[in-house]
């Protein structure tokens, strides 16, 4: 490869007027519209934006890679003076893995299930011609050690599926570092992780960047996360740069209106009110899969009518099982569920049509919750016809009414779900649940698949509906901002048990149960000093070790 003269003082990476088109429905649309930025050695650049903003596409294009179905139409990407846009595939391959490394969002998917981790971590070096099994092995193990992965000697012998998500993410970081690259791309490395795990990975990334002095691009949609690692932040929207500023400045004084609105999302807070009789009462409920695998253990819970109970916990804590047990989809092994003063049959099949109507559920992913082959009108009409016996004009009117309740234009009625945005889809789901005039709605992570601004809109809508028609919500979530925004009563779950429950005001403020404390304190704050501070606090309290130990199980 011809090596152009590279001036140490100039930026490591220069991106100039980058334009990328993506293919959808067999036609090409511009998804990155003239983005330019520079990156210096040792600098971390945060790319932030909502889904569809083109973050990942730009991140990958920065190392000269475009996914199938995309193409760079114009612009330049210069790494150490080499234009990666026009470079031949062979030349780019020589850089990838060696100089340019990539850390993907889902480590579980990005590791080849067929090979041991050590082989995969050594691979970049092997590909780039380094020989010496022992030498490479020692280097990888050294990296494992540096990233405080448990049992660094033995870890490499394991297969990807044998590790937890947080560990894999850290192993992938080690893999990216195995050739000491000059530029690292982190593509939402913590999005799929729980907060308590996320903090570990963030710490690792911070450590890597600092120790090796590599330049990095950190892609995320989470402001708090990016503020921990980035020196500079670029806010993206619809493939264009909205604002670019150093992190501290961006946090304290955002200029663009869009940035400000992003910043404002987290301010929603509901006034707690618990003066109501319970509509749902769970007593000593045990539940799980099949007949033997127990997931929920002795759950006692009272849900006040017209109020919101938030159930929080990490993945695997049993939150969703609780929702499904209440719905009767996973009938409880033991215990009783009382609804509006009468005992509910435990299995859904034994419940009457009326009960089906009175308790509704809204799902996490509106993409899979709506039949992609049915129009919005059909989706909303069917429960009206089935449960309320409405037809003709009355039904049409009611459908229109529902649409206005969820603040959707009736124009959308003739569309298919895939022609709606994520927020619109979730609103259709809400409308469908509302159609049968329920008293209790179980919301299973309804906002976690949505962008922040959209999520806020949905939360506001739910709150308004509660005020207007007095519906009761059980709100399952792992996002503490959401909890603050909507709940009256908080239930903290861990490994199938309720570790603590109480009014919002009580749970949100210390002192609290140790696990609740860990959970709440792991939630990143929009403050660059938060991460070192928390880590320091934990080290002194010995919590971090516990968490690490727990995760390596």
């Amino acid at each position, binding site marked *: 490869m011809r090596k152009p003269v590279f001036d140490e003082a100039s930026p490591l990476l220069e991106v100039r007027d980058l334009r990328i088109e993506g293919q959808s429905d067999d036609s090409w649309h511009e998804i990155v519209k003239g983005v330019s930025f520079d990156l210096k050695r040792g600098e971390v650049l945060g790319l932030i934006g909502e889904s569809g903003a083109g973050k990942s596409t730009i991140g990958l294009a920065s190392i000269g890679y475009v996914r199938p179905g995309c193409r760079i139409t114009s612009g330049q990407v210069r790494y150490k003076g080499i234009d990666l846009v026009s470079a031949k595939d062979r030349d780019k391959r020589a850089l990838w893995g060696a100089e340019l490394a990539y850390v993907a969002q889902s480590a579980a998917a990005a590791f080849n299930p067929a090979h041991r981790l050590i082989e995969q971590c050594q691979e970049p070096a092997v590909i780039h011609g380094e020989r010496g099994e022992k030498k490479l092995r020692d280097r990888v193990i050294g990296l494992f050690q540096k990233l405080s992965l448990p049992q660094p000697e033995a870890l490499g012998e394991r297969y990807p599926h044998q590790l937890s998500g947080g560990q894999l993410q850290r192993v992938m970081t080690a893999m990216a570092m195995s050739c000491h690259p000059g530029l690292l791309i982190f593509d939402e490395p913590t999005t799929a992780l729980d907060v308590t795990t996320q903090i570990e990975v963030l710490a690792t990334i911070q450590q890597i960047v600092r120790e090796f002095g590599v330049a990095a691009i950190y892609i995320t949609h989470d402001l708090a996360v990016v503020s921990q690692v980035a020196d500079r932040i670029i806010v993206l929207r619809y493939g264009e740069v909205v604002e670019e500023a150093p992190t501290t400045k961006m946090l304290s004084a955002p200029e663009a209106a869009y940035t400000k609105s992003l910043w404002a999302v987290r301010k929603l807070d509901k006034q707690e009110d618990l003066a109501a009789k319970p509509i749902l009462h769970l007593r000593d409920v045990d539940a799980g899969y099949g007949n033997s695998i127990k997931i929920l253990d002795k759950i006692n819970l009272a849900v006040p009518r017209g109020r919101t109970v938030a159930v929080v916990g990490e993945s695997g804590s049993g939150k969703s099982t609780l929702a499904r047990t209440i719905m009767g989809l996973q009938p409880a092994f033991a215990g009783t569920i009382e609804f509006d003063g009468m005992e509910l049959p435990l299995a859904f099949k034994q419940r009457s049509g009326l009960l089906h109507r009175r308790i*509704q559920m809204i*799902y996490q*992913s509106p993409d*899979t919750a709506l*039949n992609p082959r*049915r129009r919005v009108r059909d989706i909303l009409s069917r429960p009206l016809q*089935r449960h309320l016996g409405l037809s003709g004009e009355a039904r049409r009117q009611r459908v229109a009414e529902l649409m206005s309740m969820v603040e959707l234009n009736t124009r959308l009625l003739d569309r298919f779900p895939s*022609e709606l945005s994520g927020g619109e889809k979730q609103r259709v789901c809400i409308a469908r649940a509302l159609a049968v005039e329920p008293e209790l709605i179980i919301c299973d992570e309804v906002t976690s698949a949505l962008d922040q601004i959209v999520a806020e809109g949905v939360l506001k809508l739910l709150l308004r509906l509660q005020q207007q028609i007095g519906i009761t919500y059980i709100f399952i979530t792992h996002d503490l901002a959401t909890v603050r925004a909507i709940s009256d009563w908080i239930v903290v779950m861990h490994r199938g048990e309720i570790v603590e429950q109480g009014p919002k005001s009580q749970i949100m403020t210390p002192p609290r149960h140790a696990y609740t404390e860990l959970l709440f304190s792991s939630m990143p704050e929009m403050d660059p000093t938060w991460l070192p501070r928390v880590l320091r606090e934990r080290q002194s309290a010995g919590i971090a070790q516990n968490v690490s130990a727990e995760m390596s199980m």
Partner: protein
Amino acid sequence: MIAEEKVMTISKVEGPAGTRQRRLWRHLKKAPLSAWIGIAIVLAYMAVALLAPWIAPHGETEVVGGQYDPWSDEFLLGTDQLGRDMLSRLIYGARNTISVALMTTSIAFVLGTGLGLLAATVGGWVDQLFSRVVDVIMAIPQLIFALLLLSIFGTSVVNLVLIIAVLDSTRLFRVSRSVALNVTVLDFVEAARLQGEGTIWIMVREILPNILAPIIAEFGMRFCFVFLTIAALSFLGLGIQPPTADWGSMVRENATLINYGDITPLLPAGAIALLTIGVNFIVDWFLHITSGLKE
């Protein structure tokens, strides 16, 4: 022929259909050459099959000339062993062979997809029962089982259609079941259950529309195989019976001519191959679209 069910399961639930015609047209415009060839072949065959009485110069079983008259202006492709016009029989053969194969595939399709959907939707012992029965049927080589059953029930067209349909529905059962299983775990199916919808509604209105694309592709593929199976059975003398014109037995009847370098008997075989190629090309293209396989 060989089952190809494993190939099918890679397909996934397809996107919007609102602008179905528009999308179809757009796909068509972008279709590769092979797909166009396939469409042209299939359309041509359909036209020939539908218009057989009008385009065939002579009747299907009408004896119009001497045995094995050579190609001439009067008999473009010569005549067969009974002095019937080869071209006319080839044209009527299109009609008979295609309609029998189409009927068979349709019955197999309704049966296999219906039961597959039911098994996937209801699950439990129903699923187990159907699946095991299908395992058993599939463990017996299809051609040999068909041979046995045709020997038992006789070689009428109705029996032929029903037997092949039943045997073939096992493949469709497997495919539709596995595709439907992917759909049944989606939230909207559970949402429909939570609304108290019945099994039939869930099967027909919620799941079926979502698995239609891979199933239709499978339909095309099965059509080809049924077509070849019928040809093979005719070849073994158990397929469509004379004097009805049918390509498989036409090959068989005239097979010895090949030993003399006469390509006439290869014409029906070629007709079989060409149609199968056409359908396969379309199916391949269709699979390519629906699987979202971006290459």
